[in-house]
């Protein structure tokens, strides 16, 4: 059977999601898939568009990769605009030619509505929709002072945030009497306005713009119908969206009166071979301007094309929870109480800046809708009541009252029915979660990987953790945090025990707080804790037997039992003289030599007894140990920065050297990598590191908890435009908090994902000092920095410690007979198993 051709027009979030869903079904094999995108960029996350001004790039925001499309045999044609559809011939036309289809999917999205105001064609009148739009806004904002957003809805406030992050004095002009008129009521809108104005964004409600003319003090002047005016250098229109339906209109598909391509429950248009999903589609007279309903349509259509006759789109929940300019806003269901007989309960604390409103059914039993401003902590519980029709408690007001006034704690996971939707981005129900747990998942990370829950907007993270913990508990899976059979404590518990009781040896710790003699799990973990707390030499008599072989011999054991040596080369900067010494030493000991990914040099094949001799020579030439063997800071990679590079805006090498010298030797739960890039081109790949620093015109942006390796993860933007001192103070705190609270062998990425409250919580602890431990963390780090010693220097100078490096203690000149060597590409390497000598 020859394959059918499926053409998708549009490569936005919904179009991409549709393809992800489709390739996961058997139907994918029946189709040759072609995708046409008008933008030149691969589908990206428009929900987090304003991150683009916070340092995120298209790659950060991208939904997929070109490789993904290639692997799935999808022919992706970006920047090739479709100009027509011939429904009779079943072809589409682009500037490049005609293409036939069997099935056609329109995922063309929407475009920003620009109100018909005289003067709106001025070059500094812009819109906020694509990355190209953002580039235009950035260009227009260069060197000027003021920016206005027309439209006080969700997107308008996002746009205002973007203007603010560009350093502009931002204004919002809204026609309606309040902000976010769709989601909020007048009290909620008023509170939001107050909070946003406190953040320095000026809000003008009930303003109708009559014309835009040349300004006197700024580029433009907006004249309003009440005879007032406002001067500004640029205007961003964000007054709603309109479905991008021109193609459908010109091919005579059924359209809505006010636009939108009419679809049925199967997401099919009036032509049975043409389908539409996302913001271009009109279902039951409604356009859905949020991403979650678009995703639901995408899933429905993928099922339909896979032959599922039951699949149907039946509307979508338009509840939203967001942080706008740092202010929590939530809106659930029938927020405006339009249901006949609906009643309201309101809680309004103007002092604290919290507003909560519940809309309940006439009989008082069901929650129909809700509005939250200032604090979203009640959102998850309220949403579950509304979505699942859970019967309200006798005194429903307790759901929104503060606990001090008799408020109820949030809804426990047991109260949720199996059908309760936990993650709306990926449509994961409580039943789905129970399913994967029954199938063998025993932790949160596993559930996330299996179901994708909480990997979209992440809003459900706390709820998901509660459900998973509770379900595991119910199944008798003990979520054991015990380090091993010798210690009934987690690493974090042990850290506190050591710190509080001033315990300095493993022996004391296991005698007083554990049992038995220890093992290869707890010994290195405790050694690391002791090192962090007291910073004694790792080869001090009490600590020697605790270390993994790499730490014991301060080198990395390789597969043939020999070791590799990595001297520290801070920031990757090295003098020719030192480079020559490395070459000479390598040559003398016949060491295989390779440049590492962390911008240093690795010397392989040294025997135990050669290690101190080699280090004597390296230390004499000014080298220090590189801690490549330790669970500690490895390198701080850098690009060449503003000293040489035409694009660099800060001295990235200098900062990398400062950071590397500051944190070298610090023992941590796992290895820690850092990098510093001198501009946003990010040549040092800082976002793949535990700590990534990227230079800006005004200082440094800090990314945290990135990871390369088996499970790559981009770092999260943590703080922006930091001075040198602020940067170091912030890293001090995060590093120390990680060292104190992470599990054994837990990289920063997993640590953060498992922190309850995630990135926001970490920001509160570090940036807002919510636990009041900021200074203590800094002081602890300062103590460690002060007591740093080069472990190798101490070791080679101490005859007792050098004794450890005898290969055979009774035969100093005996060479290990099992090491066999060969030569490849001019260097010595171990003979592989079964390889002839």
């Amino acid at each position, binding site marked *: 059977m020859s394959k059918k051709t499926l053409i998708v027009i549009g490569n936005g979030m919904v179009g991409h999601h549709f393809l992800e869903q489709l390739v996961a079904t058997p139907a994918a094999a029946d189709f040759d898939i072609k995708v046409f995108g008008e933008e030149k960029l691969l589908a990206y996350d428009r929900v987090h568009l304003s991150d683009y001004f916070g340092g995120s790039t298209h790659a950060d925001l991208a939904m997929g990769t070109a490789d993904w499309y290639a692997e799935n045999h999808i022919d992706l044609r970006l920047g090739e605009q479709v100009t027509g559809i011939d429904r009779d011939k079943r072809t589409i036309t682009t500037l490049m030619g005609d293409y036939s289809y069997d099935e056609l999917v329109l995922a063309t999205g929407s475009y920003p509505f620009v109100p018909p105001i005289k003067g709106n064609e001025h070059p500094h009148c812009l819109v906020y929709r694509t990355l190209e739009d953002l580039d235009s806004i950035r260009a227009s904002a260069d060197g000027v002072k003021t920016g206005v957003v027309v439209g006080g809805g969700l997107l308008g406030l996002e746009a205002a945030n973007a203007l603010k992050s560009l350093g502009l004095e931002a204004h919002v002009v809204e026609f309606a009497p309040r902000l976010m008129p769709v989601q909020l009521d007048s009290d909620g809108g008023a509170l939001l306005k107050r909070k946003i104005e406190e953040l320095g964004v000026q809000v003008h409600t009930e303003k109708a713009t009559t014309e835009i003319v040349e300004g006197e003090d700024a580029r433009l002047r907006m004249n309003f119908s009440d005879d007032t005016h406002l001067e500004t250098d640029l205007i961003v229109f964000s007054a709603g969206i309109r479905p991008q339906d021109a193609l459908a209109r010109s091919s005579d598909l059924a359209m809505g009166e006010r636009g939108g391509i009419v679809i049925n429950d199967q997401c099919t248009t009036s032509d049975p071979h043409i389908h539409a999903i996302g913001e271009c589609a009109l279902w039951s007279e409604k356009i859905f301007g949020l991403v979650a309903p678009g995703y639901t349509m995408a899933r429905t259509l993928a099922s339909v094309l896979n032959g599922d006759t039951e699949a149907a789109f039946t509307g979508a929940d338009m509840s939203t929870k967001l942080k706008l300019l740092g202010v929590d806003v939530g809106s659930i269901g029938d927020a405006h109480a339009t249901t006949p007989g609906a009643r309201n309960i309101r809680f309004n604390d103007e002092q604290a800046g919290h507003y909560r409103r519940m809309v309940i059914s006439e009989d008082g039993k069901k929650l129909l809708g809700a509005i939250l401003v200032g604090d979203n902590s009640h959102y998850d519980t309220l949403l579950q009541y509304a979505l699942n029709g859970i019967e309200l408690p006798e005194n429903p007001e307790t759901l929104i009252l503060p606990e001090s006034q008799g408020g109820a704690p949030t809804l426990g996971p047991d109260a949720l029915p199996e059908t309760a939707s936990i993650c709306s981005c990926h449509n994961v129900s409580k039943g789905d979660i129970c399913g994967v747990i029954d199938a063998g998942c025993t932790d949160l990370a596993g559930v996330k990987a299996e179901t994708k829950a909480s990997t979209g907007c992440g809003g459900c993270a706390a709820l998901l953790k509660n459900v998973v913990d509770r379900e595991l508990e119910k199944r008798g899976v003990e979520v054991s945090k015990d380090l091993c*059979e*010798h210690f009934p404590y987690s690493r974090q518990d042990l850290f506190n025990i050591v710190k509080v009781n001033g315990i300095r040896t493993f*022996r004391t710790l296991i005698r007083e707080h554990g049992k*038995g*003699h*220890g*093992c*290869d799990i*707890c*010994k*290195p973990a405790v050694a690391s804790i002791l090192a962090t707390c007291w910073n004694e030499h790792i080869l001090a*008599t009490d600590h*020697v*037997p*605790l*270390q*993994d*072989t790499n730490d*014991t*011999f301060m080198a990395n*054991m390789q*597969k*043939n*039992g020999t070791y590799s040596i990595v001297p520290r080369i801070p920031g990757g900067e090295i003098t020719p003289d030192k480079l020559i010494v490395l070459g000479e030493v390598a040559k003398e000991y016949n060491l295989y030599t390779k440049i590492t990914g962390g911008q240093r040099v690795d010397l392989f094949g040294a025997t135990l007894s050669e290690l101190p001799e080699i280090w004597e020579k390296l230390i004499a030439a000014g080298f220090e140990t590189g801690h490549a063997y330790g669970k500690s800071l490895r390198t701080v990679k850098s690009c060449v920065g503003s000293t040489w590079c035409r694009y660099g805006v800060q001295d990235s090498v200098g900062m990398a050297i400062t950071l590397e010298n500051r944190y070298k030797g610090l023992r941590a739960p796992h290895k820690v990598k850092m990098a510093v890039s001198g501009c946003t081109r990010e040549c040092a790949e800082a976002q793949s590191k535990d700590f990534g620093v990227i230079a800006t015109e005004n200082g440094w942006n800090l990314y945290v908890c990135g990871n390369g390796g088996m499970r790559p993860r981009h770092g999260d933007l943590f703080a922006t435009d930091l001075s040198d001192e602020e940067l170091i103070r912030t890293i001090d705190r995060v590093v120390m908090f990680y060292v104190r609270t992470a599990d054994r062998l837990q990289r920063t990425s997993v640590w953060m994902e498992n922190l309850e409250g995630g990135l926001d919580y970490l920001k509160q602890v570090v940036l807002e000092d919510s636990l009041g431990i900021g200074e203590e963390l800094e002081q602890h780090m300062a103590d460690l920095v002060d007591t740093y010693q080069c472990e190798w220097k101490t070791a080679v100078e101490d005859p007792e410690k050098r*004794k*450890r490096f*005898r*290969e*055979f*203690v*009774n*035969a100093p000149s*005996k060479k*290990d007979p*099992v090491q066999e060597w060969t030569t490849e590409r001019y260097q010595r390497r171990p003979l592989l198993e079964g390889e002839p000598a």
Partner: protein
Amino acid sequence: MRARTSWEVVCTVEDLVPESGVAVWTEDGPVAVFYLPHRLPALFAISHTDPFTGKNVLARGITGDLKGQPIVASPLYKQHFNLQTGQCLEDEEVTVKTYPVLLDGNNVRVEIPAVNKESAAA
């Protein structure tokens, strides 16, 4: 009849590292001697050769106990070996050679089987 053996002096007490191992060269090849001062007996000797890789590294492993058995973990791929019996805890078909070991004044002696001594000498 009991096979002839010899008690070879392999090192002194000063060479030992508490809670850890050292490697010695014997007539029977490389042997790892462990000193666990908080156990009785406190001395253990097993082959220094990791049976999974054939490399001489076991003396450099971390010692301890699992379910009451004294153990060392191979530093290469972390399998555990019972220091008394040589039994690998992860694979019941794998054992490492063990040697009787004792303290003679200041000297550590390991008992080396005579057969091997002869073949080594041959």
